């Protein structure tokens, strides 16, 4: 197939006229099947199930991409800007709760993350990690790591830790659209 003919998009500028002034949300593409919301849920469930049959993991990245990722908190040395330690904050995961399923870390907990091995590390703690010195700071400016999702949409791990699989943003968005917190 070639693209030699003009696109057929119908009357133009309808969407542009709907844009809200003063804000521009991230453009979203959600996978659907015909049949409405119930089909959307079915499609999303199939997407999660298929991905979990062939689990994948991806290395941390310096910026977000088209996979479902989380930005790590880090204790950063202000002297040379290097990362002393990296962390997942449970409270951040609560926004991804669907169907009442608890994520792998509850909202009052933190867990270390070893960037080099792309894995959760150490024990779960319930106090905020301490920067250990005024020259260091705790900030959410670390690498982006994949979150692992099981076939029912529960967050079950990060990086290579835990069961489930990494999923594409479109798969997660489709699932989240058809479910409730």
């Amino acid at each position, binding site marked *: 197939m070639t693209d030699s003919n003009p*696109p057929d998009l119908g009357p133009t500028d309808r969407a542009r006229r709907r*844009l809200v002034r003063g804000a521009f949300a991230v453009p979203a593409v959600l996978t659907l099947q015909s049949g409405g919301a119930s089909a959307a849920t079915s499609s999303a469930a199939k997407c999660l199930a298929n991905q979990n049959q062939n689990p994948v993991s991806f290395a941390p990245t310096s910026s977000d991409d088209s996979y479902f990722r989380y930005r790590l908190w880090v204790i950063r040395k202000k002297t040379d800007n290097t990362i002393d330690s990296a962390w997942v904050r449970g409270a951040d995961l609560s926004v991804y709760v669907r169907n009442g399923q608890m994520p792998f870390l509850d909202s009052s907990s933190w867990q270390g993350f070893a960037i080099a091995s792309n894995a959760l590390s150490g024990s779960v703690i319930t106090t905020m990690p301490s920067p250990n010195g005024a020259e260091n700071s705790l900030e959410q400016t670390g690498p982006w790591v994949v979150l692992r999702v099981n076939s029912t949409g529960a967050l079950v791990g990060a990086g290579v830790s835990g069961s489930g699989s990494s999923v594409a943003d479109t798969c997660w968005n489709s699932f989240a659209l058809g479910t409730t917190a």
Partner: protein
Amino acid sequence: MLYRLVEGARIEPLDVAWACFSPLSGETVLLNTEAAAILELLANHGPTSDDTVARILAADTRTDIADVTEALRHAWDQLIAAGLVRTDAAHEYQQR
């Protein structure tokens, strides 16, 4: 990088979102208004650079172009994966 709309793509409003059919994938996807606006721009302007799309949408919404550029950063991959957009380089290759 120039982006172009795939021939035969169709889009219709669906409540607060937009249903969009791709003739390449044979599937219909749901877009939010921001994603639909990108497709409209490509339909009206033909092959367009990401910088130009960001500039026009920033003007439409009266927001900072840096914010729009950041928001668009991963939209292109998703629109291409959905069979709605192609890079213009790919189009030229197909015409040879």
